[in-house]
């Protein structure tokens, strides 16, 4: 006993090695994200050289630089059309992937996605109502569709939350079941409204499948605070979320305030999902698959899973959007079609290659 205390054996750096590789991954993906964003701003109906895109973006940074060496129409395309779209896409991808990882961790369920507890159906119903109300209402700053979608998402989640609450606790099984049931109810109302929507049907369906074609700086400015704050809160709670993976009772016995953790994380994840879908529609696949891709490659520790999901989600959706707007140019394919079409085969490949426990 005493010899053990005098000279404790050296802790081998097993853990550190894993941490190091994941920290390098975070740095590498951050660099890749900036690179992909610039590339996405170069590609389109008018091809802009990659370096010119960089020059345009750097010229807007607040430090001394030489006079611009590019025409002003290029500047407008990059800064006013493509960049807001790329940034909004990145924010939405990051938000959906983070929300998905959070729900999967909170519910300890690999099938959880950001839409599990009624966010998507609530947003869809809100958006459809927004499409259907008389055009005279459409005069308030931001479009009525995103506003209604955002409110719809929050209201439906609040109802699910209220239904599932038992005393001071929130049993996750009841939460999921209530979410699925309310989702089905709202979904059927949405279907009915679509059928009876006449000539507005095309616009509604396009919204439901997701599109970034109308992105503007205004949208970015409205969505940014929700997503940045929400993701920030979730990242702070990564360590207790790890402990939650044991089960609720063990987590409590290891000092986690489980009910507060659930409340905070559900609110944050719902808020970023609602903000993400309100402008661009309910894009599928990203929220459920990106966290699993990250798990397959870098492991299940939420302290790394969450930031890596933020970056991977943003990169993936930016790339998917580039494909969506260039593959059939000048027509646009809904991005929800692309995410699954390109993402699913890659995920299935990863799944086959690494046959080990991932969740």
């Amino acid at each position, binding site marked *: *006993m005493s010899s*053990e205390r005098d000279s*404790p*054996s050296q*802790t*081998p750096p*097993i*853990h*550190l090695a894993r941490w190091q590789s994941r920290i390098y991954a975070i740095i590498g993906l951050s660099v890749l994200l900036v690179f992909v964003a610039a590339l996405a701003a170069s590609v389109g109906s008018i091809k802009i050289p990659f370096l010119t895109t960089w020059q345009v973006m750097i010229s807007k940074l607040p430090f001394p630089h030489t006079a611009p060496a590019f025409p002003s129409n290029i500047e407008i395309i990059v800064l006013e059309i493509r960049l807001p779209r790329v940034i909004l896409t990145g924010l939405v991808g990051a938000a959906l992937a983070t929300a998905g990882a959070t729900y999967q961790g909170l519910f*300890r369920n690999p099938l959880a996605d950001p839409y599990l507890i009624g966010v998507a159906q609530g947003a869809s119903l809100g958006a459809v109502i927004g499409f259907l109300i008389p055009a005279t209402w459409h005069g308030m700053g931001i479009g009525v569709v995103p506003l209604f979608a955002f409110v719809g998402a929050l209201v439906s989640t609040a109802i699910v939350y209220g239904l599932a609450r038992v005393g001071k606790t929130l049993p996750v099984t009841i939460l999921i079941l209530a979410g699925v049931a309310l989702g089905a109810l709202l979904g059927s109302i949405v279907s009915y409204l679509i059928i009876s929507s006449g000539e507005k049907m095309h616009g509604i369906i396009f919204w439901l499948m997701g599109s970034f074609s109308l992105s503007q700086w205004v949208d970015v400015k409205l969505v940014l605070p929700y997503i940045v704050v929400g993701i920030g809160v979730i990242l*702070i709670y990564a*360590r*207790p979320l*790890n*402990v939650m*993976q*044991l*089960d609720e*009772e*063990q987590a*409590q*016995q*290891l*000092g*986690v*305030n489980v009910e507060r953790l659930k409340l905070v994380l559900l609110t944050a994840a719902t808020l970023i999902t609602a903000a993400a879908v309100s402008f661009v529609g309910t894009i599928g696949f990203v929220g459920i698959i990106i966290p699993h891709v990250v*798990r397959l490659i870098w*492991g*299940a*520790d939420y*302290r790394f899973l969450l930031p890596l999901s933020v970056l991977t989600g943003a990169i993936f959706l930016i790339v998917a959007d580039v494909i969506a707007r260039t593959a059939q140019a000048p027509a646009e394919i809904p991005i929800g079609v692309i995410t699954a079409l390109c993402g699913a085969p890659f995920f299935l490949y990863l799944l086959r290659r690494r046959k*080990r*426990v*991932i*969740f």
Partner: protein
Amino acid sequence: MMKIEMQNVSLGYSGKEVLKDVTFQVLPGEMVGLIGPNGSGKSTIIRALTGIIPPYRGKILLDGKGVDRIPRQELARMVGVVPQIPLLPSAFTAFEIVLMGRNPHLSFFQYESQRERDIAWRAMERTMTQYLARRRIGELSGGEIQCLVIARVLAQETKAILLDEPTANLDIGRQVEILDLIKSLCREQSLTVLAALHDLNLASQYCDRLVLVNNGRVHAQGTPSEVIIPQNINEVYGADGCVYTHPANGLPAVLINPGNGQVLTQRR
């Protein structure tokens, strides 16, 4: 140094009373065994001591302080628990699980430092689980997981340890190793140890005192020689009195007496 106390505690789930007027205490440096038939309330006592089920009546005290008044994180620095069937996430590595034992000692924005890693590693060495460190939980056996959870509770560095069937999944060699370890920690660091045990012989050999629970009530408590007597065994388990004296140390030992099938009939 911590004293665990239950004073006239009655509690239960959704109105049904599971524990009735339970009173006992565990002193620092003492290893107390909870014994009793299935469903008698052993696990409920352990859960109640971690503040998960509030009592209808009576007091649950840790060092004289009501368990419901202690914040979660502080409570987790005082009392560590080894659950009966520890469900662990299969994608995590063994080392990551043991490191979770350090959670109550870290403040909100803190990540584990080299110090926490060293403590976790020491705990793995003591439970002889260090060879598992890199493996994923999904690849481990029930016994290995059991030892890992004991390593986690050691890494938690609490003054009291509550164990719910800590040896249920272990072979006889591992049972002795783990209980030896817990007993020596109990003695050297004056830990307060309460262990629910099914195996009456292990309880008799390792515990300083025993609390025999039946139908949510304390049927008897005292030293193993006082509690493990044919009359108690008969009343509580409905089995014939087959208590002998351990040849080496004189403590009571229980041997089964097959073929009289009274257990089921009597308890219905």
